[in-house]
């Protein structure tokens, strides 16, 4: 009975999110769209709180209160000019949550010996995308805030290095799915995700950064999708997919609005190792 109620609440929350995204696309209804999204989030959270898997509430309250205290100044006191870096910073928070959930669920499955191949696949994707988004967002934040040099950074053999890193990650993924209880490879994927996040943002110039922030948003959504598959939770799949797809489209639209080709932003410094100079000029 409670389970049905939760699922119905999730369904209405999903509907709210879809309508919210639709309204957010028009200037006249954008604000109402945002309120709908916030309400949808509230419905989803309240429905989750009555889930029977949740047995103790002390830590939840601690986490919620602490998050609220951190989130309020992040929302209210940051100057409007610092918007892109604040969004990047906020991404790092959200993705960190997804990564921790992935690690926690994996460890739980490891001890309870309940890991299936499919669940391991979902969890690996989750921690890979999650950790990638954490470091990528922190890099973007650093570059926009001026903590790190804003110019694109390239080095000799960057392509080769990235590709081999990617290959190692893929191999570990296959191996981990085949033998879900091999913790080493889980850690390898986590580390590679962290490195890929850094390497992905290194060659991107400061002016192109909003596109990357939006793309990282899309990855955070996909991490939520992976969580949904791992936990059998439909609201995570729906909202994560909405976020993933809209984030991707948005980053394409943004690069178009800046008169830059999307591939150029992504691979501008990747493509030709000597071509980093003209990227720096933009």
């Amino acid at each position, binding site marked *: 009975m409670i389970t049905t109620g939760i699922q119905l609440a999730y369904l209405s929350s999903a509907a709210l999110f879809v309508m919210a995204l639709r309204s957010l696309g028009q200037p006249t209804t954008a604000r109402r769209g945002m309120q709908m999204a916030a309400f949808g989030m509230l419905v989803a959270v309240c429905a989750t709180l009555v*889930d029977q898997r949740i*047995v103790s509430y002390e830590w939840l309250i601690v986490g919620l209160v602490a998050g609220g205290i951190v989130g309020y100044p992040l929302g209210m006191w940051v100057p409007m000019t610092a918007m892109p870096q604040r969004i990047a910073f906020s991404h790092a928070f959200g993705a960190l949550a997804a990564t921790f959930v992935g690690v926690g669920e994996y460890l739980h499955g490891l001890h309870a010996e309940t890991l299936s191949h499919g669940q391991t696949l979902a969890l690996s994707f989750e921690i890979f995308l999650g950790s990638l988004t954490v470091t990528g967002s922190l890099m973007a934040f650093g570059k926009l805030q001026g903590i790190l040099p804003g110019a694109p950074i390239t080095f000799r053999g960057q392509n080769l290095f990235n590709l081999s890193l990617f290959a190692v990650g893929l191999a570990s993924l296959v191996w981990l799915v085949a033998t879900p209880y091999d913790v080493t490879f889980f850690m390898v994927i986590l580390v590679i995700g962290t490195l890929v996040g850094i390497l992905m943002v290194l060659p991107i110039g400061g002016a192109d950064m909003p596109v990357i922030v939006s793309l990282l948003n899309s990855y955070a959504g996909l991490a939520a999708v992976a969580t949904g598959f791992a936990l059998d939770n439909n609201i995570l799949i729906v909202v994560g997919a909405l976020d993933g797809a809209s984030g991707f489209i948005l980053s394409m639209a943004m690069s178009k609005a800046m008169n830059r080709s999307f591939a150029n932003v992504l691979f501008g410094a990747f493509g030709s190792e000597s071509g980093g100079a003209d990227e720096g000029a933009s």
Partner: protein
Amino acid sequence: MTPTVIIQLFVFLLAGFVGFQTITRIPPLLHTPLMAATNAISGISLVASLVLAGSNQGLFSTILGTIAVGCATANVVGGFLITDRMLAMFKPAKLEAKESVA
């Protein structure tokens, strides 16, 4: 693959298409607010964090879960607040924007 996984894949595919469709052709004016809003929406991992933190799966999982709840809440609260602030600022420009779109 179990039937549940198949259904979940369908759900994922369809929701992805909806995401693509709703966002195409939005005016550049709304790019940044939309980015902030989708950032807040990606805090949906709060749902998963709540389950992890509350389900007593051992001390380490509870600690991880609590940190995750805190981070995701900060993301959600901050994200929605800032989107609202941004959109509230647009109010005078809203009519102009409407005319240029129409």
